[in-house]
Every structure is written in structure tokens, then in C-alpha cells.
């Protein structure tokens, strides 16, 4: 989880990730940043994120993103 926040900070520093609950809907992460985020996630956590999973509700908060990663790990 800390690693994830580190990645996010690097991609888009101007957001308070601990509290933000609308990363996508509030336009903090644009689609390009999400692409970068996904490749970082794939490289760092060893999961494959299929296109289907890229929906706002999976990326709106750090908690949600972490849940997604955990879920994908299990499905591997």
C-alpha cells in the first residue's frame, strides 16, 4: 500500500492520497496518468490489469486500487 502511494505521488504529486475518494471522478487522475499507473502496478506487483477492470469505481481511491491489486493477485 505504501509502495502504491509512492507510485501515485510520483505520477501526480498534487493530491492528498490518504483522504481522496474521487480520484477519477474528480479529475485528479486523467486517462494518461491511469495508463502510467497501470504499467507501474503491473511492473511492481506482478499482476496483469485487463482493460475491463479500468472503470472509475476501481480507481477512485487508494483503498480501491489496492483492493483491485489484491483481487487480481488472487485470480492469478
Amino acid at each position, binding site marked *: 500500500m505504501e509502495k502504491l502511494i509512492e507510485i501515485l505521488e510520483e505520477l501526480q504529486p498534487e493530491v492528498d492520497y490518504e483522504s481522496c475518494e474521487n480520484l477519477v471522478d474528480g479529475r485528479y487522475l*486523467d*486517462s494518461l496518468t491511469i495508463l*502510467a499507473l497501470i*504499467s507501474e502496478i503491473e511492473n511492481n506487483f506482478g499482476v496483469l490489469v485487463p*482493460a475491463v477492470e*479500468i472503470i472509475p469505481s476501481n480507481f477512485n481511491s487508494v483503498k480501491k486500487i489496492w483492493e483491485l491489486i489484491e483481487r487480481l493477485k488472487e485470480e492469478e
Partner: protein
Amino acid sequence: MSYFNIIYIFAFLPVVIILYNIIPKKLRPVLLLIASYLFFFYISGKLIIFLILSSLSIYFSALLMKKIDKVKEEKITDLESEEKRVVKEKYKRLKRTVLVVTILFNLSFLFFFKYLNFFGSIVNGILDILKINYSFKLIKLLAPIGISFYTLQAISYLVDVYNGKVEASDSLLKVLLYLSFFPIIMEGPITRFSSVCDSLLKGEKTTYNSICLGYQRILFGMFKKFVIADRLNIFVKLTFGNYRSYSSLVLALGAIFYTILLYMEFSGTMDVVIGSAEIFNIKLEENFKAPFFSKNISEFWSRWHISLGLWLKNYIFYPVSMSKFVKKITAWFRKLFGSRVATQVMGSMALFAVWSLNGLWHGAGWTFVVFGYYHLILILLGNIFEPTVIKVCKKLKINRDNKFYKFLRIIKTCCLVVIGELIFRAPSLSVAFGMLGKIFTKFSLKGFSSEVLSLGLDVCDFLVVILGVVVVFVVSLLNEKGKNVRERISQKNIFVRWAFYYALILGIILLGAYGPGYAPVDPIYADF
């Protein structure tokens, strides 16, 4: 018949509402389907067969995919994990074949009706260059109304079923109605199955409230269309029709007016559409969210024709950027230039696909292709230079949250949008570039005011346009600030509420640009 036809608003819709309420609840969705097919038949006649074919194809292939999944689950229950994988892979491939075949089947109609001529003419051009003495005969076909919209909906349903996002519907009625529902059939919004599937078949009684609110929204749409769009159309038609005879400022004004016209016409149509659906308690997604408050082009496209943008994002942008091919290329770039560049490349490739399709979707013609790539270039430039701009701002100590800075960004975006819409409206590329050339090179103020008033609109007309735009602007501004205007009006007492209604109705009747001397705008998006 367009949604602004008096017959639609004051005859067709009321009759459907009355019938809807007197028949038993179970039959109501059937009535909506019949009404939808009548509506479609009235406009496109026998071409309705293509709508039915599309609907049936997605209905059955979705069920087939569901069946494949079921068989797969049964087979893998008592297999070892290695074998499981093999079997899974096999069924996945089968499912994908079903998906691809059905999508191609649906796209073939779209291609046949809308793009055959365009590509035919390109092939003819190539044959001509190669000095091959043969040319394809081009035929102008009348496409089924709304084919560009319902085909995208059909694809979204199939892909969602394939991905397990929605369950394939057993109810044929539901799928038929989803694709043909009369408010959305002509101009969208391109609706996802998951967002309407429950409400479509509910058949909930219309209430006093739903009718009032629905018609309130319809009236607002009529205001945008009759008072503003139809009025500006006179000016726009003349400037785009014969740009050589007008000065650069008038042409610029023509382009600005066209952008306003397009917004009023299209978002006004959406008001009628969403209002109509609201009457039957079917909630549709908004298609516009104050697009002219955008700070850059990508934001603009997330506020303008939202449903198309979302469709392209969900079914083109992410799938393309997550595809194996693009990932391979990205990996290669990452090794050479680092991850920042790699992501840019990945996004750019996906954006290229998105904007190629966006352009072509709007119409089979070079102006639309250029319209697409124009936005692609703007967005790519924005992506590449954004970090630099942020750095420069920091150096110069400019606060990017500053209101004035925001305002400048909004103005910049509006100017870029107007240029885009100019290309969009121009009858040909040479006219588009001719106009742009003239606007940017031959600036002169001489005789401006008399020329402006010679283009079919008098001082009164301009005042009305300004008044209308201010009304729409204030409503957007309030909505943008999170103050729901409709809710606020409904909370006021009856005198204030009725005053609003009367003002709106009389505004349309008195200030509407109809009758002798005004030619209404054709429904712009219905042809796409």
C-alpha cells in the same frame, strides 16, 4: 420527424403517455417498443429491418456467450489446475469468436450505409493515380436513422456481456427496446445496457411530477433550439455558404455562431430526449456538462457529447492501450527512454485510434477526418507540454488555481473548439482552410457593423441571441456550481414556479425564430 417537431412533442408523446397509463403495467414496455418502431418506421420506413437484424443478432449472440460460459463452468469443476487453464482458454477463444463475428456483422451494416461511398471514392482516386481504367460505381444510400448510435450501443452490450460486466438478457423485449427506445434512437445519448436495463421494463406509471419535470426539460430544449439555434442558422448558412464574399471578422463570428448553434441544437435535443425518457421514469445519462467551462481540450471532450467520449474510452482507448501489441511496443520504449516516454507513446497510440474513429464516426468525409486529428494533435500537444507549462508557471510564480489564469485557459479552449467546429461545418476542406486563412491573415474592422447586419439578422435578433445565451449561461453556471436549478425552481411557491413556466413558453412563442423568413436547422446529429 425530428424531436423538435411539434407533432412529436405535442401529439406523439402525449398519445404515448395516455396509452401508457391506461394499459396494464405488464404491457407498458411493449407499448414503448411499438411506439419506438412506429417512430423509426415513420422516418426510415423499410430500413427498420436492419434495426431488427442488429437487435436479434446481439440478443442471440449474448445468449450464446452466456451458454458457452455455463458449459465451461460445468467442464472445469473437476479438473486439475493445469487442465483447467487449457479448457478455459479454449472456451474463451470460442466466446471471442462469437463476439467478433457479431460485431463485424453489425459493423458491416454501418459500413455499407455510411462509409461505402467514401472508401469507394478513395479507391477510385487511387485507381486513377495508378492509371487503372476502372472505377467503382458510387451509390448514395439513405441510412437507417440513428444507425451510428444504435450500432455503438449494440457493440457496448456485446462487449459488456463478453467481459461479464452485464448478464446476457433472457428477455428479447428488453434488448429490442434497449436498441430502439424512441427518445434515444436518433441522436443518443449512447446508453449502456447496465444503466437502463432495469428501468426499461419496469413500466412504472407516469406521475404528475414526472410529466411536469419532463415537459419542463423539453421546453428548455425548445428554447435553446427555436430561440437561439434557428436564429443563428441564418447567419451561419450565409457565411459558410459563400465565405469569399465576407470579411475576416464576419467569418470568425460565423464560426463562433456555428459553435453556439451546434451546442444549442445538440444539447437542446438532449433536453428533449432526456425529458421524454424522464416522463416514463427512465433516467438517461447527461450528454453535456457545461462544455464551455473546460480548461483544456481533453476536458472539453469529457463534457461535450459525453456518451460518445465514454464509449470511445471504454471500448477503444483502454482496450487498445492494454492490448498485447501496444504493450510490447511500450515495453521496448521503456527500455530505451524510460517510463514517462513509454506511457506517452502508449497513450498516443490509443488516442490515435480513438480520434481516427471519432472523426470517421461523425461522417464519411475528409473534413471529419481532419476534425478528428485536429483534436488528437491538440490533446497530444497538451499531454507533452503540460509538465513544461507547470514548471514554467512555478518559475514565474503563477498560481495555476488563480481565477484569472483559469479564465484565460477557458478562453483559449473555446477558441480552439471554435476552430475545430469550423472545420466540422465547412462543406469541404478547401473551404475550411480558405476560411481559416482569411480569418487569420486578413483582419480588418472596416465596414464590420454594416456587414454584420446585412446577414439576415437585425439588431433585435442579436439582442435575442444575447439574451438567450445569457439565460443558458446562467443555468449552466448555477449547475456547474452544484446548484440544481430545476430543484430550486420546484422548491419555490406556485406563483414563482408558474411565472418561470409562462416566461419560458412565451419566450419560445414570441422570440422563436420560426415562420416566414426563418429556416430551421436540420437535426445535425441525426445524420451521423
